[in-house]
């Protein structure tokens, strides 16, 4: 364990490209590790060079360590928001940059939003000071614009990022390939979910053919493909199981179809949305298909979601499905509200520990990063949030957030606006405050 940890330290520090060369001890808090150690009271967490090196009751701080007094406080792992467009968008509607959408089918599965990510986006600071330290950034789809150009069935590749604000904050490229099924997908492919499925199958079949006949293809002894080489290369990761399909889908029947498809092609899938997933929870658990969902989405907002219900998070998790939570309304600007999602899931029957798991370790597991992040355990990157009380309670906000061991600035454009307008002295306009 010790050896693997020190190897891990070197590896991560090397990868992250900065060395804080600093030791921090967070002392005296109640630590919800979300790991095998469970919850530890009056615990000390030691962070060295961005990595957690020890967690426990009887751990003492090395000399020279920066001591953070957390007596009476709650510590949790950093929160991981499993779907959204952080760093890809500033203003949602009709203004500002939006880099999450690719129209046309020149590139489809090869479109990679990691190349558009802006670690200095306004949204990063707003969300990280409330405990979000990692996020999946995902491409989106759009129906036809004025010139008839719509997005493809594939929206493109999603990535996992950290919210350190640093240039090197992409943790995992090609963490998933986003595909649109059901109501959202049919509008992108012939106005039927049957044609939507044909497009998807055709892409997977071409990718297989390309894989099996690459040499012949390069000698121009193989037929032309409808997909670009970039797309077919990206799909190779799907065929090997390295890149899961992240399917935007809500209707139970469409998810049943997805289960059959994954078996047929030997590929992996993750469901995003999954309003009716609770109806086939056992099948999803058997097929090891995780679900990213909003626990508060209880309305039949379209005919794919006719069986929406308020307690589906608890139903899914008790059936053994791995679940990550999205925020109640906005998954991007207010990604920070995943604690509210988790709290509401608790009030609808989920255990508190499972709820915390769904916003920390579960998404790390779903996107293959649980060896590095998601829990407060020795050897993991030190994403830690210090709370004044129960992190799921709406009145509690983080007092300090650490990302990869770094104690971040707890200010954002919003706190600056707040502080300016909290001042009530008159005489000069706000711009002078």
């Amino acid at each position, binding site marked *: 364990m010790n050896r693997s940890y020190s190897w891990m330290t070197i590896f991560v520090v090397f990868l992250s490209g900065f060395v804080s060369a600093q030791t921090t001890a967070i002392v005296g808090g109640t630590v919800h590790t979300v790991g095998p150690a469970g919850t530890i009271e009056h615990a000390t967490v030691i962070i060295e060079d961005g990595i957690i090196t020890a967690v426990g009751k009887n751990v003492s701080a090395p000399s020279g360590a920066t001591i953070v007094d957390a007596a009476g406080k709650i510590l949790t792992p950093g929160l991981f928001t499993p779907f959204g467009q952080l760093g890809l968008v500033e203003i949602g509607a009709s203004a500002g940059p939006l880099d999450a959408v690719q129209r046309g089918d020149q590139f489809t599965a090869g479109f990679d939003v990691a190349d558009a990510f802006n670690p200095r986006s306004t*949204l990063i600071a707003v969300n990280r000071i409330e405990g979000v330290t990692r996020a999946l950034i995902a491409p989106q789809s759009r129906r036809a614009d004025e010139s008839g150009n719509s997005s493809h069935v594939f929206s493109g590749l999603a990535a996992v990022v950290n919210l350190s604000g640093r240039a090197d904050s992409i943790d995992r490229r090609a963490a998933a390939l986003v595909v649109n099924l059901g109501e959202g997908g049919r509008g992108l492919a012939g106005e039927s979910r049957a044609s939507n499925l044909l497009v998807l199958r055709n892409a997977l079949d071409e990718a297989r053919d390309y894989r099996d006949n690459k040499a012949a293809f390069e000698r121009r002894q193989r037929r032309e493909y409808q997909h670009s080489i970039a797309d077919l290369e990206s799909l190779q990761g799907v065929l090997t199981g390295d890149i899961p399909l992240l399917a935007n889908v809500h209707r139970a029947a469409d998810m049943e179809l997805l289960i059959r498809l994954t078996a047929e092609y030997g590929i992996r899938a993750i469901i995003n949305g999954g309003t009716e997933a609770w109806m086939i929870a056992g099948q999803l658990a058997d097929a090891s298909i995780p679900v990213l969902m909003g626990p508060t989405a209880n*309305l039949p*907002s379209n*005919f794919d979601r006719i069986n929406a219900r308020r307690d589906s998070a608890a139903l899914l998790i008790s059936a053994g499905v791995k679940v990550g939570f999205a925020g109640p309304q*906005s998954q991007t600007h207010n990604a920070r509200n995943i604690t509210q999602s988790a709290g509401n899931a608790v*009030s609808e029957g989920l255990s508190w520990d499972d709820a915390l798991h769904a916003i920390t370790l579960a998404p790390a597991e779903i996107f293959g990063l649980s060896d590095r992040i998601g829990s407060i355990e020795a050897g993991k990157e030190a994403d830690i949030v210090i709370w004044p009380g129960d992190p799921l309670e709406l*009145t509690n906000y983080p007092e300090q957030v650490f990302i990869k061991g770094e104690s971040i600035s707890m200010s954002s454009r919003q706190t600056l606006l707040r502080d300016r307008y909290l001042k009530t002295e008159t005489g000069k306009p706000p711009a002078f405050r």
Partner: protein
Amino acid sequence: MSKLNVALATVSVCLVACGKGVPDLDVPEPFASRYQALPSETTLLTGATILTGTGVRLENADILMSKGKIIAVGPGLDADGAAVVDASGKWVTPGIIDVHSHLGVYPSPGTASHSDGNEATSPVTAEVWAEHSVWPHDPGFVTALAGGVTSLQILPGSANLIGGRGVTLKNIPGRDVQSMKFPGAPHGLKMACGENPKRVYGRRGTAPSTRMGNVAGYRAAWIEAADYRDKMEAAARGEGEAPMRDLKLETLVGVLNGEILVHNHCYRGDEMSIMLDIAEEFGYKVTAFHHAVEAYKVADLLAEKGTCAAMWADWWGFKMEAFDGIRENAAIVDRAGACAIIHSDDAIGIQRLNQETAKVMGAAARVGIDIPPENAIKWITSNVAKALGIADVVGTLEPGKMADVVLWSGSPFSVYTRAELVYIDGALIYDRNNPAANPVTDFSLGTSALAGGLQ
């Protein structure tokens, strides 16, 4: 209720001209409320923490309801023959009221055929009434009920400068909108600032396409309305012929006469300031700015004008005019002495207005603004009733008021708390622990969500 009904019905009939020396139109109030309280029994909730909505918090107190009204609130009440509910360890508040909802006009499922909230065919459509679009079978009414919402204003959307009349409903799914209309509640008038109208019309190459175009549009409408009012009044004095009845101008004159309340969608502080000057110019009052993402920048102005700000807790950034949203917005408005309201504008958000309020309380506490529960509850009850013109009959737990009451499993400002019992006019309408007795709209029949799921 009946006395109030008669009194307010008279006012409604007189919308255009009574009180201005003009004869009554002598027509019955169109689409009048046919709301009838459901059967109720005398009920005593005992031993609760009670937030009265007047800024008072009572511990270990009781509340007695009978014949649809609140009879008494205080410690140690007893009543012979009352159904007694042990509420110890639980909290009781007035029914939650949402000043800004589109339930019924943008219902679930959100198909194009259900899109009835914006008459986006002309920038001024004061002649349309949201109540004529309300689909009572929207499942969202029932999920809102499960969140403790007992009354709500349904507004037209914000595509237009002046979008039409809003309607206030009692949250009891009826077979038609008339059976849901809050008896005696005045109409609202939806107006909209900023991005939406200029975008909707600008991209068609018609006015308005700019914010200055927006302002010209409002002023032209009020000039027309004032002229109509003057001609009507002159005709009543026997000077000249009355113009033909005009539904658009009738609504606007209702605002000028103070009988219809202006609910103005407006995000930016500087735009609110402009809108207050327009109101000054034409002699009407802005009852509330809605969304009001930058209300904190003009909180003193709002206090001075007696204009409420109806806000989200934390929505921001989805459009340019929402870029400066901060979590402390409502707290700063409240601190300035202005009327703060938390609203939803959303079928999911309406189910937990109490939680949205809690987020503001926590954010405010961080910067030293203490919003105790007894004050916070006003943002989603009595302040809303004020903005809807129904504060004399609902919004607080005071004897004589409508018995719209919620029993919560704990503090309504905890994420773990749920509404357990919801009473409207003293009748138990929702019981979390008895799903079989709860209302189910037609649309929800046959969905498996009904197995205890939806609500």
